[in-house]
């Protein structure tokens, strides 16, 4: 490998690294946000279901 080739390789790495880091950060954020929203929505639905069932049970016992 000549010095010129090494320099070209380094230039390539320099050009690629920041966009790669940025893309990885975006993917990571999107995955975390997506999963969090999904899980939160499911939990809210479960709380609503529990609430409705508890109200029905208490009403039947009155």
């Amino acid at each position: 490998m000549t010095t010129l080739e090494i320099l070209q390789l380094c230039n390539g790495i320099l050009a690629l690294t920041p966009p790669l880091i940025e893309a990885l950060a975006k993917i990571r954020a999107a995955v975390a946000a997506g999963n969090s929203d999904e899980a939160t929505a499911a939990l809210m639905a479960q709380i609503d279901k529990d609430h409705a069932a508890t109200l029905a049970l208490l009403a039947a016992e009155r």
Partner: protein
Amino acid sequence: MKQRVVASLFALCLMVSVACAPKSTPPVTPAAPTAAGIQATPTATAIQAVAVLSSANLAAAQSTVALHKAGTISDADHRMLLSYYASVDAACYQARLILGSTQTPAEKYAALSALAVNIVVPQVATPEIQTQLAAIAASTTLLVQSIEGLHP
């Protein structure tokens, strides 16, 4: 000589890469790891705690009704327990509405702190119900702790 040039160039690459890397913005609120290893916000953690409490409360209410029908629980304990379950359910639902709102974590914390959560668990002689009441007490403690996580 060539090796030294390569080593210097890679060191330079590394420094420039670190300098050029986008600065990650700190999260608005501290995050806690979930079972899936994903960072959960304090709001998501509090919603999880509400879900656990509402499930424990419903399970205890169902057991109480069944045991009352079987004659294991007195009418007085039955009435007292149902009243307690109703108050826990109301608190859970209020907490769910607050946590699901578009308020900021600080506003949610203020609203949840004002919410009356009955942490005094009634005492009954029935061991099965006592176990479920203990589960409600533990879930309530978890909820109170998770609400603290919203503290600005």
